[in-house]
């Protein structure tokens, strides 16, 4: 197991390095002068040169990259536009000259919003997606199955940037049934927190649930006919209990892996949902950074998003190994 773990960690680090190198090369190699963008239009040539030095743009690209990666491990000091040194402790993801704060701090400020959206959306996905997939598999071919698959097909086809506005119009603007979507920190009251986010949760969850419903249903149907489930039923275990205890466990592998990918992607920022509902999370930060040409923030958000994906995919692999002895022993 230790060997497996070590191998998995080494793999994850290699993937992250490759991603950071690609993102870094792509965005810093573009001939638009990052120093000029960072410095602003009122910058004289001396200031520009200072910014260029502090951003390390006078160095060759390879040493810029090693500095950047070094900063992630050990932290470093970056000079602001006017030359004041700014400490950027490890893990340092660079300094945003647009926001005037280290990129990691900017992301940390907005992470609670994104995590809140992700947690609720995940709950909706589990209930709606996995739940309806289970129900459809147990009621295969009956009206319940058809109804659920129709409902999920609608979810797979509708777009957040359409459904989000329609629901806001119908439920918030016209009838006032729901409070306008907004973010209230969890610490200020869990009720307010949930009320402000319930609409984004439902929309994001509904749109993503279809994949899980379909996968759950087909996995369950496939596993149901395995010998060990038949044995459990032959020994007198009830239908529902045998399916939940044995079939579900055997069927969970691909689901857990997909969920790991989903959690990682959600934590990297829900770009469209945040834009539609006007919530200032990491996704909004990334979109704003792109439109505002804030390169350090762009690279930083790409890296953080990739980190979450790699982390949760690896965790999902571990969970799968724990759930299914066939994987562990292979």
């Amino acid at each position, binding site marked *: 197991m230790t060997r497996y773990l070590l191998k998995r960690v080494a*793999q994850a680090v*290699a*993937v*992250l390095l*490759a*991603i950071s190198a*690609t*993102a870094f090369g*792509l*965005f810093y190699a*573009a*001939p*638009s002068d990052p120093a000029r963008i960072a410095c602003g239009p009122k910058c004289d040539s001396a200031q520009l040169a200072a910014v260029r030095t502090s951003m390390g743009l006078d160095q060759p690209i390879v040493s810029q990259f090693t500095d950047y990666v070094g900063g992630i491990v050990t932290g470093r000091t970056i000079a602001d536009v006017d030359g004041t040194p700014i400490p950027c402790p490890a893990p340092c993801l660079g300094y945003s000259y647009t926001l005037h704060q280290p990129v990691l701090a900017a992301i940390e400020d907005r992470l609670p919003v994104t995590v809140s959206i992700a947690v609720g959306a995940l709950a909706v996905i589990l209930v709606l997606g996995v739940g309806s997939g289970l129900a459809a598999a147990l009621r295969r*071919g009956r009206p319940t199955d058809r109804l659920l698959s129709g409902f999920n*097909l*609608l979810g*797979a*086809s*509708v*777009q957040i*940037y*359409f459904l989000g*506005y*329609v629901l*806001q*119009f119908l439920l918030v*603007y016209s009838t006032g049934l729901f409070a306008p979507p907004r973010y209230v920190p969890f610490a200020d009251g869990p009720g307010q927190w949930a009320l402000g986010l319930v609409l984004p949760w439902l929309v994001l969850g509904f749109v993503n649930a279809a994949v899980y419903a379909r996968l759950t249903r*087909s996995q369950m*149907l*496939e596993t149901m006919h395995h010998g060990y489930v038949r044995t459990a039923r032959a020994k007198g275990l009830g239908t529902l209990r045998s399916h939940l205890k044995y079939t579900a466990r055997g069927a969970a592998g691909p689901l857990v892996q997909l969920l790991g*990918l989903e959690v*990682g*992607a959600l934590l*990297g*920022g829900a*770009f*469209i949902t945040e*834009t*539609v509902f006007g919530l200032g999370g990491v996704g909004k930060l*990334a*979109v704003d950074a*792109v*439109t505002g*040409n804030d390169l350090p923030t*762009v690279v930083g*958000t*790409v890296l953080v*998003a*990739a980190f979450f*994906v*790699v982390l949760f*995919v690896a965790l999902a692999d571990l969970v799968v190994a724990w759930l299914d002895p066939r994987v562990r022993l292979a």
Partner: protein
Amino acid sequence: MVDAFRRDRVGIASFCVVGFFVVLALAAPLITALYGKNPTEHYGQNGAGLLSPEGLPLLPNGGISAEHWFGIEPGLGRDVLAQLVYGVRTSLLIAGTSAAVVAVIGVVVGVAVGYLSGFVDRAFTFVCNVLLAFPALLFLITLGPVVQTRFVGPGESEPAWMQFLVLVLVFSVFGWVPLAMVLRTVVRSLREREFVEAARALGASRRHIVFRELLPNVWAPVLVHLTLAVPAMVTTEAALSFLGVGVNEPVPDWGRMISRGADVFYDDPTYLVFPGVSLLLFVLAFNLLGDAVRDALDPHTVR
């Protein structure tokens, strides 16, 4: 296989809807000529009595009239129906071209890796891991502006064909991975089958095995993958335009219509509803068609 598809009523219906959209895209100039409007003219600003001073349509329901069947755009006052019809063109052109590129790269890489294995397989797995962990949407959002600063001088506007090319490029870079992964698995199991073994025993060359024995057996998964990939690309393209980094004015585009519609949604909801519902129908039909194709091609599917 065609017989199995013919028995599927939902499949036939979705095929017709998809066909309808394709005809719309191909015949867009003809349709708008018959209808007597074009997608770029600012009817609302040029003709009196269509837009209020605030730029909202005066007639109810987004300015629907005998003249403008689906109403007019708030602000510029362009014809919604003409924009929608040309919007299908934009979507299908980008998604279709990307799907073709994805098919070629996916088949070549998937079949090659599945057949060769060994070191090539390990390298492939690593590349897949990298590309799958990549925040693809964020990357798509960022790449457009980067290409723009690289190839377009300051002050110039980006030509439409370059935006198309960038979108096709990024869709292809990420799109071939899942297809190649599927084909790798398919080819790996085909490789061990008797007919390939028989060909090998008869002294067939590697080339013969790949082109004559393996390739003819992978088109079914490719077809299923592509029918489901096209709507995914269309919605991603619309999402990019919605976020403001997709296709620019004046090329008609559904995502940008939705983005504009979102700005004025509380005053003029009609302008968002038309592109939104069109996109929903389009994607729904493609998803149903993809399911029908899969069922027709694979008799083992559990239904």
